């Protein structure tokens, strides 16, 4: 077993064991932190599929997280205040909301990806960000769902056999989802599909000359990644019970990118380590000083510059 695999397994074991301890010792604050971290780690894992393995620097991933959260909030809102019954979208059922989140995000990824992926480099970064900002401004302008002020989710998603109002159950769902997300990305990136995706990152012209069209494979990965981020968003909505456009701001997308790069892009565990380091550092530093953004930023830049391959770079062993 490589040292990276061990590091990943240790991190996942800690993440499985600590939150229940927090819960049963009445440490609600730390349990909350662990849940948020776990949900953002799912979003980072989904981003890693395209950013790390696909080499596609998407600067708009928070839009998917936000859309996923709205896919929980809007049906819950109509369930309470009426409207959209005819579409079956006035509901608190997670079995409707979560698939809705994933389908909406998959479609958004398909439409915007079809356009973004025709560009390269800086243009790609800019256009993914532009599409995300479009969603941001759209959500600001829709008064019915709170506009700028955001939307309170009065009722969490109802799932059979689960009560998401119970914080340890919500954490449990997030944790299992993270494990599944990691396994899916791992499986995909090792498959024949994943080989094409990784090959196109290294040398797209060569891959095309082999008879494979990089565009089609990238678009597929883009859609998978978007749907996964939408799922993370649905969980986040359930966690915060509040959604606002601010969740989709470009700085949020930047944070997700940072988690991936900080932890180690194109590794299975990197995004999780990155999300953990990011959330914990942010928490700790903000305790010491209100001017925590500056040292935080400098620290992040130092890690990215001086560890080849992020935190996972520390665990560079035999493959």
């Amino acid at each position: 077993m490589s040292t990276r695999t061990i590091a990943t397994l240790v991190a996942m074991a800690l993440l499985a064991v600590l939150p229940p301890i927090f819960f049963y010792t009445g440490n609600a604050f730390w349990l909350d932190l662990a849940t948020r971290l776990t949900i953002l780690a799912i979003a980072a894992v989904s981003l890693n599929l395209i950013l790390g393995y696909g080499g596609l620097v998407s600067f708009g991933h928070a839009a998917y997280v936000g859309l996923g959260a709205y896919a929980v909030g809007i049906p819950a809102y109509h369930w309470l205040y009426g409207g959209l019954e005819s579409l079956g979208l006035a509901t608190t059922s997670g079995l409707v909301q979560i698939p809705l989140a994933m389908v909406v995000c998959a479609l958004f990824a398909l439409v915007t990806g079809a356009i973004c992926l025709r560009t390269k480099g800086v243009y790609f970064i800019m256009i993914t960000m532009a599409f995300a900002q479009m969603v941001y401004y759209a959500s600001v302008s829709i008064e019915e769902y709170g506009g700028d002020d955001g939307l309170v989710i009065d009722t969490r998603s109802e799932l059979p056999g689960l009560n998401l109002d119970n914080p340890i159950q919500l954490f449990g769902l997030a944790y299992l989802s993270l494990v599944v997300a990691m396994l899916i990305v791992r499986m995909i990136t090792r498959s024949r599909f994943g080989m094409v995706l990784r090959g196109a990152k290294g040398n797209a012209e060569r891959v095309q000359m082999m008879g494979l069209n990089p565009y089609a494979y990238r678009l597929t990965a883009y859609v998978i990644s978007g749907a996964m981020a939408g799922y993370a968003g649905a969980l986040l909505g359930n966690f915060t019970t509040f959604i606002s456009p601010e969740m989709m701001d470009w700085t949020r997308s930047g944070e997700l990118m940072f988690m991936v790069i900080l932890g180690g892009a194109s590794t299975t565990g990197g995004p999780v380590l990155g999300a953990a380091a990011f959330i914990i550092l942010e928490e700790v530093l903000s305790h010491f000083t209100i001017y925590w953004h500056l040292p935080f930023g400098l620290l992040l830049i130092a890690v990215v510059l001086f560890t080849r391959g992020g935190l996972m770079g520390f665990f560079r062993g035999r493959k």
Partner: protein
Amino acid sequence: MSILETKGLMKSFGGIRATDDLTLSVEQGELHAIIGPNGAGKTTLITQLCGTQMPDAGTIHFKGRDITALAPDKRARLGITRSFQITSLIPDMTVLENIALAVQAREGSSYRFIRAAAGIPAIRDRAMALLERVGLAEKAEIETRALSHGEHRHMEIAIALASRAELMLLDEPMAGLGPEESARMVDLLTELKGQHTIVLIEHDMDAVFALADRISVLVYGHIIATGDPASIRANKEVEAAYLGEEA
């Protein structure tokens, strides 16, 4: 029977005519060498044949089918492969993964998400056999960027072979090779000759005259002569335009 035919191909970059009314016919099974001075437009011709650049005018037919407007990946699927004058591999993948990707591209759909590619014996075995053939088997697990230039040149050939392409376009496979590596490459090409139709671009005249069935001479984007090695050697015009300056 000719497998590849171009008619009146034109390509200009600004004021430079890189391809100028270029008409070429490559016979099935032959090794057709294209020689010409630096900047004659040899690489530009290859890029148009494989589809990464579109000609301004003219047509390209492959096995009787007009492929002038076809995308590169579609041409590859029809059976055209190329190697690059400037090595073009996937640097952050292992040697084996590079070849395996080329094998997998040829063997059915790559829209397969579940099984690990490395665990598919049919792909792995064929890729290893190809590495064996170009003498790189023991480097299989090494990251491609760590190999030498000569080894990269041999990987290019392995990838071309992986495609089982009927038509191989090889752009200076011996560029930058030492004498020993060059000799190995000539051996390899001798072996491939007859199994594939090959268009070979090469500056190494000894290799060209030893390997080629026919030679075309390209000067300023135009083919000034085509013929067997003996007739090209005897051609005064060619000598004036090209061979003369080497002597």
